[in-house]
């Protein structure tokens, strides 16, 4: 239950005074409360825990991390390893 699930916001609306959203979890749509991510827009990816989005996932940071990780592989391919 502690494991947050990333999903994509497909719709934003209000219910009982709370910002809510329809979130697409790889094809499965569920409702989540967006009150803690006021900056979130339709199309953003958010991390959802027990029905609440806790943060917008930074696409930029994700890409940067993956690019850095890819760099190690490229470096390894260029330089012969010692082992």
């Amino acid at each position, binding site marked *: *239950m502690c494991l947050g699930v990333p999903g994509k916001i497909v719709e934003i609306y209000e219910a009982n*005074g709370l910002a809510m959203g329809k979130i697409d979890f790889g094809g499965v749509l569920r409702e989540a409360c967006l009150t803690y991510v006021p900056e979130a827009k339709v199309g953003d990816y958010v991390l959802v*825990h027990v029905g609440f989005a806790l943060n917008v996932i930074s696409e930029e940071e994700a890409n940067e*991390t993956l690019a850095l990780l890819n760099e190690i592989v490229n470096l390894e391919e260029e330089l012969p390893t010692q*082992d």
Partner: protein
Amino acid sequence: MDTKLRYGFRDTKLVQAKVRQIQKLVTRPWAIMEICGGQTHSIKKFGLDQLLPPEIEFIHGPGCPVCVTSLELIDKALQIAALPNVIFTSYGDMLRVPGSKGDLFSVKANGGDVRVVYSPLDSLKIAQENPRKEVVFFAIGFETTAPANAMSVLQAEAMRIDNFSLLVSHVCVPPAMRAILNSPSNRVQGFLAAGHVCTVMGYWEYIPIAEEYRVPIVVTGFEPLDILEGVYRVVRQLEGGTHEVENAYSRLVTYEGNRAAQKVIQQVFEVCDRKWRGIGTIPKSGWKLRDAYLKFDAEHRFDTQAIETQESPLCIAGLVLQGLKKPYECSAFGTLCTPQNPLGATMVSSEGACAAYYLYSRNLESPKMNHV
């Protein structure tokens, strides 16, 4: 982005490269604790412990809320759930956690109205639809579920839903880390901090811990590459003799965390001493409802009798949770105690160390990354 989010951080080629990078770095044995049960689950599921050099030992931390909710509180839940006018709502995992006598499933089987919900807001809705019933939500969890639970209380107040209350068992990570480091039998040399807890709380709380105990702490995510990156950075610090807090989960975690969520937590909860199952009371390690919200506190609303708690005499979950024993060292592991018939809480949730070992022990014989 979609594919990248799900599979980018599981890329086999990148995983292998990261493992080689760690192999080149490591010169001696190191014991690293992953605090979070979700990470324990990933480590066993993807066989990461088998991929890494033998010098690296994972000590599995107590970060599974289902596992550490105290027996006293489970017993209270069982009493409240059995009351005739109560609808008791809970996350599914809690239903099979053994109390001193039975579990929530057995209460349900005996006619109790016990319902599984996905979010405390679902529970609130049930309260709204059943005004003549008392609806109780079992509010367990670490800092990750606190924003949701706190908001359900504010909503109940705003919408004047008076038949709703929480049975609160909130636990917090930093005091548990201190308790582990203070223990004379501690072997932990570096920590992977729980990424999703830090999504809410940021990582400023860990800076004094790293400083005071001279341990490296790396904020770490849950995908195989996230965990390996966390391990890499901890090992790099251990080998270099430094003890800093690093963030290896920058796509979700910032230094200060989610301020809006912290503010609501602060408004609804206050710090309290909390008893952890198998470990004992850790000072200032939990949250309880503030006095202003006492009417939403199920412990206040229902008179429960103190009953003599009783753990299974075979269960060594307390030692497992403190990283002093591995699940397979328990005499009941996989025989008398299985996920279908758990003797201890760490066998119930898939985030519990015993269940993770039980579910993924096949990784010991099969090629590890096949499941990725």
